[in-house]
């Protein structure tokens, strides 16, 4: 697989995606959307503090990639991580309770929005330093390679992280040692308030592994099936011992970088155009209706999702704060 920019439309039938799976993608994307809207609302109410980076608009990336993974594969990402956790199958209640800083949160209230993990779901965080998850993800892939267990590592990074030096240190080692890893660049076009063309000498990021011989592909990250198709091919590439591969997901975040984003760096028209013309959830909804799903069926899913999010929000508010004694736990493991 060489470096390429994909322009052919995805032929859905060739992917062997059943209507049941399509409905699952719809449900999973909708769960992320509604969860994030609720998190935004709860932030506004002062129930969530600190930094909170919402994933709204980018849902197709994690849902499509997750569908391409197998049991045992590991996932790591940066701090815009709520969507990744939900896609990995982590419980929305535990995620929301971590956002509210309560004891039933995934990190017992000690990590917050940017630092959550689930060994059970093979989700390795949730890292707050831009780019730091890339060597870590490369190390997870190294462990798969060391153990020869047939699993792969999936490492997400943004168009902001792509200019960090440690990313290229990782690319070099991954290619040198043919580590089983897929690097997914989520290009949402803005690193905080700096647009990609103001930050990157070349804005087509799938080329960034060229110097190391790492193949790359640009993918429509607003189309869950396009993501799934590329994800399948890329994970197969990594799993088959051919080394790392890069997928550049062209995506968009509707909300600000974090909750306190003045939004002066892009126009409302641009945001509205992406929402109305390229929304990944609306796109799949139309597709499902064309394929014969009924409005009632979709409304049923929407209602289930709403209930799950409401339940998570309630749980996150009802759960108590951590026991003060938790201040001192988990610094070091007992020998």
């Amino acid at each position, binding site marked *: 697989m060489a470096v390429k920019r994909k322009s052919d439309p995805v032929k859905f039938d060739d992917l062997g995606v059943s209507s049941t799976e399509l409905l699952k993608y719809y449900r999973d994307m909708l769960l992320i*959307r*509604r969860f994030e*809207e*609720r998190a*935004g*609302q709860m*932030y*506004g*109410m*002062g*129930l969530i*503090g*600190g930094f909170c980076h919402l994933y709204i608009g980018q849902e197709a990336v994690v849902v499509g990639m997750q569908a391409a993974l197998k049991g045992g594969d590991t996932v*790591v990402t940066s701090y815009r991580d709520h969507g990744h956790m939900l896609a990995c199958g982590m419980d929305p209640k535990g995620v929301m309770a971590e956002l509210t800083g309560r004891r039933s949160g*995934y*990190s*017992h209230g*000690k*990590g917050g929005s940017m*630092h*959550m*993990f689930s*060994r059970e779901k093979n989700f*390795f*965080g949730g890292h*707050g*330093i831009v780019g*730091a998850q*890339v*060597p*870590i993800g*490369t*190390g*997870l892939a*190294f*462990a798969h390679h*060391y153990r020869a267990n047939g699993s792969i590592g999936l490492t997400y990074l943004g168009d902001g992280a792509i200019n960090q*030096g*440690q990313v290229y*240190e*990782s690319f070099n*080692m991954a290619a*040198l040692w043919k580590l089983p890893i897929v690097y997914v660049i989520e290009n949402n076009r803005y690193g905080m308030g700096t647009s990609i063309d103001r930050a990157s000498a070349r804005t087509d990021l799938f080329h960034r592994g060229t110097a190391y011989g790492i193949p790359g592909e640009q993918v429509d990250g607003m189309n869950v099936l396009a993501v799934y198709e590329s994800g399948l091919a890329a994970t197969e590439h990594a799993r088959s011992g051919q080394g790392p591969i890069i997928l550049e997901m062209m995506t968009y975040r509707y909300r*600000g970088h974090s*909750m*306190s*984003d*003045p939004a002066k760096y892009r126009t409302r028209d641009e945001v509205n155009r992406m929402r109305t013309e390229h929304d990944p959830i609306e796109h799949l909804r139309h597709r499902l209706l064309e394929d014969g799903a009924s409005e009632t069926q979709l409304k049923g899913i929407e209602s289930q999702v*709403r209930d799950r999010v409401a339940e998570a929000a309630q749980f996150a*508010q009802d759960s108590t*704060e951590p026991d003060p*004694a938790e*201040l*001192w*736990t*988990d*610094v*070091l*493991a007992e*020998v």
Partner: protein
Amino acid sequence: MATEVLMPALSPTMTEGKIARWLKNEGEPVRAGDVLAEIETDKATMEVEAIDEGVLARIVIPEGTDHVAVNTPIALIAGNGEEIPRAEKLAGTAKVRPEAPVETRTARPSPGPRARPAVPAEAEYTGKTTTMTVREALRDAMAEEMRRDGSVFLIGEEVAEYQGAYKVSQGLLQEFGARRVIDTPITEHGFAGLGVGAAFAGLRPVVEFMTFNFAMQAMDQIINSAAKTRYMSGGQMGCPIVFRGPNGIAARVAAQHSQCYASWYAHVPGLKVVTPYTGADHKGLLKAAIRDPNPVIFLEHELLYGESFAVPDDPELIVPIGKARIAKVGEHVTITAFSRMVKLAMQAAAELEKTGISAEVLDLRTLRPFDIETVVASVKKTNRIVSVEEGWPFAGIGAEIAAIVMEQCFDWLDAPLKRVAGQDVPLPYAANLERLAVPQVDDIVTAAREAAYR
């Protein structure tokens, strides 16, 4: 039931804001995700989105209104087909809005035994020993642990084919192969982070830095990733990793290659920091570090690699992390030291003995967790203390020991603590200047005499 839309906070510090404009009119249907209004503060503009489907039943706060307090109801959304409540009913609904928890003063709990675990000293070894260099003791420790546990591997620059830049990993490639003894590119930040990821996955990496000077390139991965993740994950993400290599001065390599990082790492919760001196401690503590489920910074010293000691043969002999060693028993003054400075402290003690001053020398061995008990017990006996370190004095290990002594045994002190440390300058190249910049035996002798008022 109709739901309120509340004035949102844009940041944890915002208390009020302005409704810049409404994007929906009363009576207009809304879908989840629709933007209802724009809110402004002096810092930012934010959109308020609908969470549920329904009809914008009432705009409570008109656009252009400034100083609207956070959590004030600003609009009402009615469900589809639901009767729109009358305006006067709104006042009552405001009370049911969820509240953020009120901050209350909670008494800070004591760290309890966790912060100062009682580490028993190792049993006295009476078995067979072999005289070997520190370099060989380190190699044997790694080889024994790699034989014992298949998840242990060594990674770093020149550790395999070159046999180690300081020949510490001699023979390991031949015994364990390239899968477990891994030469890296010159890429400290990258391979330190890779090691952290492998440790998260349950492997036990031993990451060699050619010297700790180069570990500054990797500082973010060591502190932010290795040390903090276990805490931030509520205990899920242990990081069993050893970062090891020479620390401190070498000979005539100047400022960028000569620095003691002991106090840097000792500052950080979530790390253990080990600074051995004897051959037995190099071996026993490195074995303990490799078996430890936490990230361990293992600070070696280039000028000790060639020194020979009697080292126990028993492969199960482990030296516990967190316990100082009384290198010499004495009565009149306590001298604390670690790593190569223990050698100088012992030489100073011998000099002092000639003038009738009996010094007790403590080889600290571990800096985090710090063996407060042994230091305090010694000071309570001698009533005087000198701290010796190769690094800079300001905010150094000696400064910390001074604070500990003030807090724990001030009333036992007969003299102020004296510090012997590297001079507060980047290390110079010229032989005479270099000698002036680092602690010498005479400096320790002088400090001990001053502390003893003799």
